[in-house]
Protein backbone atom coordinates (compact mmCIF):
# COMPACT_ATOMS: atom_id res chain seq x y z
CA UNK A 1 0.00 0.00 0.00
CA UNK A 2 2.86 2.36 0.76
CA UNK A 3 4.37 1.55 -2.63
CA UNK A 4 1.11 2.48 -4.36
CA UNK A 5 0.97 5.84 -2.61
CA UNK A 6 4.65 6.55 -3.37
CA UNK A 7 4.10 5.70 -7.04
CA UNK A 8 1.04 7.96 -7.11
CA UNK A 9 3.05 10.82 -5.55
CA UNK A 10 5.73 10.36 -8.22
CA UNK A 11 3.08 10.41 -10.96
CA UNK A 12 1.60 13.64 -9.61
CA UNK A 13 5.08 15.19 -9.30
CA UNK A 14 5.94 14.20 -12.88
CA UNK A 15 2.70 15.78 -14.11
CA UNK A 16 3.72 18.97 -12.31
CA UNK A 17 7.15 18.86 -13.98
CA UNK A 18 5.58 18.32 -17.42
CA UNK A 19 3.19 21.25 -17.00
CA UNK A 20 5.87 23.64 -15.73
CA UNK A 21 8.32 22.63 -18.49
CA UNK A 22 5.57 23.34 -21.05
CA UNK A 23 5.13 26.78 -19.47
CA UNK A 24 8.83 27.61 -19.89
CA UNK A 25 8.87 27.23 -23.67
CA UNK A 26 12.01 25.24 -24.45
CA UNK A 27 11.23 25.15 -28.14
CA UNK A 28 12.01 21.76 -29.70
CA UNK A 29 13.04 20.26 -26.38
CA UNK A 30 9.67 20.78 -24.71
CA UNK A 31 8.10 18.16 -26.99
CA UNK A 32 10.91 15.70 -26.27
CA UNK A 33 10.77 16.27 -22.51
CA UNK A 34 6.97 15.90 -22.47
CA UNK A 35 7.25 12.54 -24.23
CA UNK A 36 10.08 11.31 -21.99
CA UNK A 37 7.97 12.17 -18.94
CA UNK A 38 4.93 10.42 -20.47
CA UNK A 39 6.99 7.25 -21.12
CA UNK A 40 8.34 7.34 -17.58
CA UNK A 41 4.83 7.76 -16.14
CA UNK A 42 3.43 4.89 -18.18
CA UNK A 43 6.39 2.75 -17.04
CA UNK A 44 5.45 3.44 -13.42
CA UNK A 45 1.78 2.58 -14.05
CA UNK A 46 2.65 -0.60 -15.99
CA UNK A 47 5.17 -1.89 -13.46
CA UNK A 48 3.50 -1.00 -10.18
CA UNK A 49 -0.24 -0.59 -10.75
CA UNK A 50 -0.49 -3.28 -13.43
CA UNK A 51 2.16 -5.48 -11.74
CA UNK A 52 4.12 -6.02 -14.92
CA UNK A 53 7.36 -6.29 -12.97
CA UNK A 54 5.98 -9.37 -11.16
CA UNK A 55 5.07 -11.11 -14.42
CA UNK A 56 8.60 -11.43 -15.80
CA UNK A 57 8.45 -15.24 -15.91
CA UNK A 58 5.67 -15.56 -18.44
CA UNK A 59 6.57 -15.68 -22.12
CA UNK A 60 3.56 -13.49 -22.99
CA UNK A 61 5.07 -10.57 -21.18
CA UNK A 62 8.60 -11.35 -22.31
CA UNK A 63 7.86 -11.38 -26.03
CA UNK A 64 4.44 -10.12 -26.95
CA UNK A 65 4.52 -6.71 -25.25
CA UNK A 66 7.96 -5.79 -26.66
CA UNK A 67 6.70 -7.23 -29.96
CA UNK A 68 3.66 -4.97 -30.08
CA UNK A 69 5.71 -1.94 -29.05
CA UNK A 70 8.31 -2.65 -31.75
CA UNK A 71 5.57 -2.97 -34.38
CA UNK A 72 4.25 0.44 -33.32
CA UNK A 73 7.73 2.01 -33.39
CA UNK A 74 8.40 0.38 -36.77
CA UNK A 75 5.16 1.86 -38.17
CA UNK A 76 6.00 5.32 -36.85
CA UNK A 77 9.57 5.05 -38.15
CA UNK A 78 8.54 3.90 -41.63
CA UNK A 79 5.84 6.57 -41.85
CA UNK A 80 8.36 9.28 -41.05
CA UNK A 81 10.90 7.91 -43.52
CA UNK A 82 8.22 8.73 -46.09
CA UNK A 83 6.82 11.98 -44.67
CA UNK A 84 10.08 13.62 -43.59
CA UNK A 85 11.97 13.12 -46.88
CA UNK A 86 9.26 14.05 -49.36
Amino acid at each position, binding site marked *: *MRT*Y*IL*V*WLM*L*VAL*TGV*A*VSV*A*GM*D*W*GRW*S*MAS*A*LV*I*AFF*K*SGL*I*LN*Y*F*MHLKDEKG*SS*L*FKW*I*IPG*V*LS*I*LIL*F*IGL*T*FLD*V*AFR
Partner: protein
Amino acid sequence: MKNPQNDTGSKMGMWLFLLSEILLFGGLFILYSVYRFNNPQAFHLAAEALDRPLGTLNTLILLTSSLTMALSISFLKKGGPRRSLLFLSATLFLGLLFLFNKYLEWTWKVHHGIYPDAPRLLEREKGEVLFYGLYYSMTGLHGLHVLAGVLLLSVMFIFILRGNIHRNHFVPLENTGLYWHLVDIIWVFLFPLFYLIT
Protein backbone atom coordinates in the same frame (compact mmCIF):
# COMPACT_ATOMS: atom_id res chain seq x y z
CA MET B 1 -13.77 -21.38 -7.43
CA LYS B 2 -9.98 -21.25 -7.12
CA ASN B 3 -8.61 -22.39 -10.44
CA PRO B 4 -5.10 -21.09 -11.15
CA GLN B 5 -5.17 -22.16 -14.81
CA ASN B 6 -8.34 -20.23 -15.54
CA ASP B 7 -6.99 -17.21 -13.72
CA THR B 8 -3.82 -17.12 -15.79
CA GLY B 9 -5.83 -17.64 -18.96
CA SER B 10 -8.25 -14.81 -18.35
CA LYS B 11 -5.45 -12.46 -17.38
CA MET B 12 -3.56 -13.30 -20.57
CA GLY B 13 -6.71 -12.71 -22.59
CA MET B 14 -7.10 -9.31 -20.96
CA TRP B 15 -3.50 -8.40 -21.79
CA LEU B 16 -3.96 -9.43 -25.42
CA PHE B 17 -7.05 -7.21 -25.60
CA LEU B 18 -5.09 -4.33 -24.04
CA LEU B 19 -2.33 -4.75 -26.63
CA SER B 20 -4.89 -4.53 -29.42
CA GLU B 21 -6.12 -1.32 -27.78
CA ILE B 22 -2.57 0.04 -27.86
CA LEU B 23 -2.45 -0.59 -31.60
CA LEU B 24 -5.88 1.02 -32.08
CA PHE B 25 -4.76 4.23 -30.39
CA GLY B 26 -1.31 3.80 -31.93
CA GLY B 27 -2.79 4.30 -35.40
CA LEU B 28 -4.34 7.57 -34.27
CA PHE B 29 -1.05 8.65 -32.68
CA ILE B 30 0.71 8.09 -36.02
CA LEU B 31 -1.92 10.19 -37.77
CA TYR B 32 -1.44 12.90 -35.16
CA SER B 33 2.35 12.94 -35.46
CA VAL B 34 2.28 13.21 -39.27
CA TYR B 35 -0.25 16.07 -39.27
CA ARG B 36 1.66 17.85 -36.53
CA PHE B 37 4.93 17.41 -38.41
CA ASN B 38 3.35 19.00 -41.48
CA ASN B 39 1.54 21.83 -39.63
CA PRO B 40 3.65 22.71 -36.55
CA GLN B 41 2.59 26.36 -36.44
CA ALA B 42 -1.15 25.71 -36.78
CA PHE B 43 -1.04 22.98 -34.11
CA HIS B 44 0.70 25.40 -31.79
CA LEU B 45 -1.93 28.09 -32.39
CA ALA B 46 -4.89 25.74 -32.06
CA ALA B 47 -3.57 24.10 -28.88
CA GLU B 48 -3.27 27.45 -27.13
CA ALA B 49 -7.06 27.67 -27.11
CA LEU B 50 -7.36 24.46 -25.07
CA ASP B 51 -7.96 24.73 -21.34
CA ARG B 52 -4.62 23.65 -19.85
CA PRO B 53 -5.66 23.85 -16.16
CA LEU B 54 -8.74 21.69 -16.83
CA GLY B 55 -6.60 19.18 -18.75
CA THR B 56 -4.13 19.06 -15.85
CA LEU B 57 -6.97 18.58 -13.39
CA ASN B 58 -8.31 15.68 -15.46
CA THR B 59 -4.83 14.12 -15.54
CA LEU B 60 -4.64 14.28 -11.74
CA ILE B 61 -8.17 12.84 -11.48
CA LEU B 62 -7.28 9.82 -13.64
CA LEU B 63 -3.95 9.23 -11.88
CA THR B 64 -5.71 9.30 -8.50
CA SER B 65 -8.41 6.95 -9.79
CA SER B 66 -5.64 4.50 -10.75
CA LEU B 67 -4.39 4.63 -7.15
CA THR B 68 -7.85 3.97 -5.68
CA MET B 69 -8.35 1.13 -8.18
CA ALA B 70 -5.08 -0.54 -7.16
CA LEU B 71 -5.99 -0.10 -3.48
CA SER B 72 -9.45 -1.58 -4.04
CA ILE B 73 -7.90 -4.74 -5.56
CA SER B 74 -5.32 -5.06 -2.81
CA PHE B 75 -7.99 -4.73 -0.08
CA LEU B 76 -10.17 -7.38 -1.72
CA LYS B 77 -7.21 -9.79 -1.85
CA LYS B 78 -6.55 -9.18 1.84
CA GLY B 79 -10.18 -10.02 2.55
CA GLY B 80 -11.66 -6.60 3.18
CA PRO B 81 -14.66 -6.33 0.84
CA ARG B 82 -15.92 -3.21 2.62
CA ARG B 83 -12.75 -1.21 2.07
CA SER B 84 -12.49 -2.63 -1.41
CA LEU B 85 -16.00 -1.34 -2.18
CA LEU B 86 -15.12 2.03 -0.68
CA PHE B 87 -12.10 2.49 -2.94
CA LEU B 88 -14.00 1.06 -5.91
CA SER B 89 -16.69 3.70 -5.49
CA ALA B 90 -13.98 6.36 -5.22
CA THR B 91 -12.63 5.13 -8.57
CA LEU B 92 -16.12 5.20 -10.03
CA PHE B 93 -16.69 8.74 -8.75
CA LEU B 94 -13.37 9.98 -10.18
CA GLY B 95 -14.19 8.39 -13.54
CA LEU B 96 -17.53 10.19 -13.63
CA LEU B 97 -15.83 13.44 -12.59
CA PHE B 98 -13.40 13.07 -15.50
CA LEU B 99 -16.32 12.61 -17.90
CA PHE B 100 -18.15 15.59 -16.41
CA ASN B 101 -15.10 17.83 -16.96
CA LYS B 102 -14.83 16.53 -20.52
CA TYR B 103 -18.50 17.40 -21.01
CA LEU B 104 -17.90 20.97 -19.75
CA GLU B 105 -14.83 21.34 -21.96
CA TRP B 106 -16.60 20.13 -25.10
CA THR B 107 -19.69 22.26 -24.40
CA TRP B 108 -17.53 25.39 -24.18
CA LYS B 109 -15.77 24.50 -27.40
CA VAL B 110 -19.05 23.82 -29.21
CA HIS B 111 -20.44 27.06 -27.77
CA HIS B 112 -17.54 28.94 -29.37
CA GLY B 113 -18.34 27.30 -32.69
CA ILE B 114 -15.42 24.87 -32.63
CA TYR B 115 -16.64 21.40 -33.49
CA PRO B 116 -16.05 19.17 -36.51
CA ASP B 117 -17.39 20.69 -39.73
CA ALA B 118 -18.44 23.93 -37.99
CA PRO B 119 -18.53 26.92 -40.35
CA ARG B 120 -16.42 29.05 -37.99
CA LEU B 121 -13.79 26.33 -37.71
CA LEU B 122 -13.63 25.75 -41.48
CA GLU B 123 -12.71 29.43 -41.99
CA ARG B 124 -9.46 28.81 -40.13
CA GLU B 125 -6.21 27.39 -41.44
CA LYS B 126 -6.18 23.74 -42.61
CA GLY B 127 -3.80 22.69 -39.85
CA GLU B 128 -6.10 23.99 -37.14
CA VAL B 129 -9.05 22.12 -38.64
CA LEU B 130 -6.92 18.96 -38.57
CA PHE B 131 -5.91 19.62 -34.96
CA TYR B 132 -9.51 19.90 -33.81
CA GLY B 133 -10.53 16.86 -35.86
CA LEU B 134 -7.86 14.85 -34.04
CA TYR B 135 -8.74 16.47 -30.71
CA TYR B 136 -12.38 15.41 -30.98
CA SER B 137 -11.74 11.92 -32.32
CA MET B 138 -8.87 10.99 -29.99
CA THR B 139 -10.20 12.44 -26.73
CA GLY B 140 -13.67 11.25 -27.81
CA LEU B 141 -12.51 7.66 -28.30
CA HIS B 142 -10.68 7.88 -24.99
CA GLY B 143 -13.81 9.28 -23.34
CA LEU B 144 -15.79 6.30 -24.65
CA HIS B 145 -13.20 4.04 -23.04
CA VAL B 146 -13.63 5.84 -19.72
CA LEU B 147 -17.40 5.44 -20.05
CA ALA B 148 -16.97 1.70 -20.71
CA GLY B 149 -14.65 1.55 -17.69
CA VAL B 150 -17.24 3.26 -15.50
CA LEU B 151 -19.87 0.70 -16.56
CA LEU B 152 -17.43 -2.15 -15.90
CA LEU B 153 -16.61 -0.73 -12.45
CA SER B 154 -20.32 -0.56 -11.62
CA VAL B 155 -20.78 -4.21 -12.59
CA MET B 156 -17.80 -5.14 -10.39
CA PHE B 157 -19.34 -3.16 -7.53
CA ILE B 158 -22.53 -5.21 -7.75
CA PHE B 159 -20.55 -8.48 -8.00
CA ILE B 160 -18.54 -7.72 -4.87
CA LEU B 161 -21.68 -6.62 -3.04
CA ARG B 162 -23.38 -9.90 -3.91
CA GLY B 163 -20.31 -11.92 -3.02
CA ASN B 164 -19.68 -13.24 -6.56
CA ILE B 165 -16.22 -11.72 -6.40
CA HIS B 166 -14.27 -12.22 -3.19
CA ARG B 167 -10.78 -12.81 -1.81
CA ASN B 168 -10.46 -16.23 -3.47
CA HIS B 169 -11.94 -15.15 -6.77
CA PHE B 170 -10.76 -11.69 -7.66
CA VAL B 171 -9.53 -12.01 -11.27
CA PRO B 172 -12.51 -10.10 -12.80
CA LEU B 173 -11.72 -7.13 -10.56
CA GLU B 174 -8.02 -7.43 -11.41
CA ASN B 175 -8.79 -7.44 -15.14
CA THR B 176 -11.06 -4.41 -14.74
CA GLY B 177 -8.14 -2.75 -12.98
CA LEU B 178 -5.79 -3.58 -15.86
CA TYR B 179 -8.24 -2.00 -18.31
CA TRP B 180 -8.68 1.08 -16.12
CA HIS B 181 -4.90 1.58 -15.82
CA LEU B 182 -4.46 1.27 -19.60
CA VAL B 183 -7.10 3.95 -20.18
CA ASP B 184 -5.09 6.07 -17.73
CA ILE B 185 -1.85 5.42 -19.67
CA ILE B 186 -3.50 6.50 -22.94
CA TRP B 187 -4.51 9.77 -21.28
CA VAL B 188 -0.93 10.20 -20.00
CA PHE B 189 0.07 10.47 -23.70
CA LEU B 190 -2.97 12.40 -24.93
CA PHE B 191 -2.51 15.11 -22.31
CA PRO B 192 0.95 16.42 -23.38
CA LEU B 193 0.16 15.93 -27.07
CA PHE B 194 -2.92 18.16 -26.97
CA TYR B 195 -2.60 20.44 -23.95
CA LEU B 196 1.15 20.95 -23.58
CA ILE B 197 2.18 21.99 -27.10
CA THR B 198 4.52 24.98 -26.96
